[in-house]
């Protein structure tokens, strides 16, 4: 079982049994986010002198609230407050978080966004489907690639013909 956890800020921490230390990471993220919102609000100028709600009014409120909530969460965590992780039909919480799968899935998603301008959705979509099924444990990759290609070409033509939305074709421009 992996005992590390990553939050959107990319920090990695160890989690213990008594206090959910990873939650300090979330609290830290909230404090940083709140602080940044406050800083950004301070850089905004008055729009019109007679405008009752200036552009910085709401940011000050939201930033301060995020900051405060981050501190409150840290206090609650120190007191042993634990989150109730979300359950679901396919979710088995008795196992630890499988970070490797998440990492690989994110890698596939990032590869897709890097390649999509060049190769076009019809190709990257198929690779996205095949790649994610592989990461999720399916080994019938020829079949998955075929399904993926059917989905991506189908959706390309579906959007083009059915909805009138031309998805950029990328390298296949003129072929599709």
């Amino acid at each position, binding site marked *: 079982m992996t005992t590390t956890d990553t939050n*959107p800020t990319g920090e990695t921490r160890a989690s213990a049994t008594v206090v959910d230390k990873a939650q300090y990471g979330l609290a830290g993220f909230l404090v940083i986010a709140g602080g940044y919102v406050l800083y950004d609000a301070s850089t*905004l*100028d008055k729009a019109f002198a007679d405008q009752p709600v200036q552009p910085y009014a709401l*940011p000050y409120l*939201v930033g301060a609230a995020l900051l405060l909530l981050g501190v409150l969460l840290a206090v609650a965590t120190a007191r042993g407050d634990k989150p109730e992780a979300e359950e679901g039909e396919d979710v*088995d919480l008795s196992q630890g*978080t499988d970070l490797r799968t998440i990492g690989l*899935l*994110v890698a596939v998603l990032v590869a897709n966004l890097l390649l999509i301008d060049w190769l076009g959705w019809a190709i990257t979509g198929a690779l996205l489907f095949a790649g994610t099924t592989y990461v999720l444990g399916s080994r019938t990759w020829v079949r998955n690639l075929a399904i993926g290609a059917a989905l*991506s070409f189908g959706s390309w033509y579906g959007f083009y013909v059915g909805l009138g939305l031309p998805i950029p074709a990328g390298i296949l421009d003129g072929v599709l």
Partner: protein
Amino acid sequence: MDLLLDGFQTALTPENLLFALIGVLLGTAVGVLPGIGPAMALALLLPVTYSVGVDSAIIMFAGIYYGGMYGGSTTSILLNTPGESSSVITAIEGNKMAKSGRAAQALATAAIGSFVAGTIGTVLLWVLVPRVADIVVTLGAPSYFAVMVLAFFAVTMVLGSSKLRGFISLFLGLGIALVGTATGQARLTFGNAQLADGIDVVVVAVGIFAIGEALWVAAHLRRKPLEIIPVGQPWMSRDDWKRSWKPWLRGTAFGFPFGAVPAGGAEVPTFLSYATEQKLSKHPEEFGKGAIEGVAGPEAANNASAAGTMLPLLTLGLPTTATATIMLLALQSYGIQPGPQLLTNEPALVWGLLASLVIANALLLVINLPMAPLWAKLLQIPRPQLYAGILFFATLGAYTANFAPFDLALLVALGLLGLAMRRFGLPVLPLIVGVILGPALELQLTTALQISDGDVSTLWGEPVAVAVYAVIGLMLVAMAVGAVRGRRTPAAPATPTENDETEELVNR
């Protein structure tokens, strides 16, 4: 009445009937499929709003909303793992029935109960929507601002066990809503020109609902498949009918009002309905072992609450469930501002939708009763392909918003946020409500203060606003009292029974 007939004319055109049918089929499918609910399905389907007509799209979305409820009960009964908190009771009692060989009766009472509740709920909407809309139009910006603040407090405090996490989620959402341009100045854009127009709400919804959920499930994917109880054609004996019809009606009576008020939700009425049926039943000993009343009542409450949700959505533009929030988003993407003016500005749309709800309900009964065994087969879909499919359509949905790889980068970032939220027990609804209503809140506040020339006292200058603030105050007091009481009686019993849980919910 004429308007309603016009509504049926809109809803019964072949094109819109087709969209209603697609909607209920899709809705049932996503309701049955594990890991994908109606809110996620609507988020993934938002791209259709770019070219389909507004009445067709909203009729289809309503079909998905209702269909998701029907499909969800099938999963709960046959799998004993509730997809949403509102089907917890169905999962307990219905699965017990299924295990004792009464799956067919459990599915039948759930489906027919949903139909009864949905139909009564829709008729109530026909009566209430125009009346409430008449009152709501007279509200000024201060009252409207107050109601929005109430909605924020309601979705934050009523749902989920931790208020702190509710508020964290809400303010994260409000923070995301700040990104963009305010009166000519870039706000929270990190100097990035691609953020100048704000983050597309489609990207937020798809990232949080679809990517976040898929990543979360992927990280905890069940290694051994769930045991699915085989089922034949749903049917009920005369005795089952006799035991079901009263719970259906009582469940509807609980569900609709809770759905209709901004603070309601579907969980509390299902628990209330269950407790009531247990008290009134002639077979209280069967409860917890598979009593048909315990499925009939809560399922009706669940669906009636879904119908009730349409009341604040259509009259105030306030969503109270995740699915309603995405429907609001869909309306906005047509440039329609849901709110007090909706019924005045778009009577054809609103009445078309209200008429189509009855049609959707009837279609759902037809496709669910005979086809239940077929739908149950969906539960066997291999998980890698299912979740890969979700990621595929999520990416496609976000990409079609602007055809910009930058949106896909945002999508991944928001997906990771969604993952973290599920890990840390942050509810999703307050965030998405914050994202969608944040700009409207700022607008209403500005409007109110502009009219009063900057005099802040205008905010409590309308009686409705005062009343709403009083309600918010009461909620805060109740929360504080609850917190103090909770501290005085620490360490709840290790094995809380169903009854304790119900009482706890009632007291809240």
